């Protein structure tokens, strides 16, 4: 019995969306700390501060969610297929960083991101 390919694509999309939420909440948690990490000792203090933030836990929950969906997808679909579709989260994260985190973009950053996605698709498909 075969699982509907559309369902697999939908699952990969949901898992990508979870990845986007994870990266955004982690980055916004770290931005809110405004901590200068230099040296091993500081890294330890920094990580302790990060895991005290609710947003970091939100990131953790969405990682687990994404992982569970991805595990299921991997057991059903070809790794190459999963990889190339999963690459759409690069574009989603770029858009979200610009709109939500207000990161400043130059044209070269958009262009680079799109090139990477095309490259990943070419690598995965061959």
């Amino acid at each position, binding site marked *: 019995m075969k699982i509907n390919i559309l369902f697999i694509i939908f699952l990969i999309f949901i898992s990508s969306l979870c990845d986007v939420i994870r990266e955004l909440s982690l980055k916004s948690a770290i931005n809110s700390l405004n901590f200068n990490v230099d040296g091993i000792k500081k890294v330890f203090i920094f990580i302790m501060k990060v895991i005290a933030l609710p947003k970091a836990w939100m990131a953790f929950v969405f990682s687990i969610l994404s992982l569970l969906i991805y595990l299921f997808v991997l057991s059903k679909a070809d790794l190459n297929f999963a990889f190339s579709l999963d690459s759409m989260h690069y574009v989603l994260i770029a858009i979200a960083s610009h709109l939500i985190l207000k990161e400043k973009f130059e044209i070269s950053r958009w262009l680079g991101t799109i090139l990477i996605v095309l*490259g990943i698709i070419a690598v995965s498909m061959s």
Partner: protein
Amino acid sequence: MPNKKNVTVKILLLLLLSDILETFIHFCFKKSVLTQADFMVRTLSDAFTFSKAAFSSPFMWAGLMAVAVIFIVWSTILSKIDLSVAIPIASFSYIFVPLTSLIFLHEKISALRWSGIFMILAGVILVFLSSHNKKSGFL
């Protein structure tokens, strides 16, 4: 306010480390579900059984350990550079995997795959350059 947005050699090395860990995690997770490829998950209790079997694999635990390490590395990276720079630059694992299979496994790389590798490389360089402030020096 620590506002050093430039990608330094140190951050590049951290990104490299996170890529290697990421590849390792993918490998471990794939290994942990490979044994039950024929398993059909139809109901919620099937999903539970599936997860239980996956978590009984040592690969799963090695992968999860690597996840903890990558969290520390990745958080450190994100404290220093923009998310929209870190994510694309971290994509060079897509180059490593085919290249390591070329060097160590002597697999052939097709023309399409080579063109993909060069596109990723060009994209990473573009994003890397876009993160650089014109006033400050290179690296």
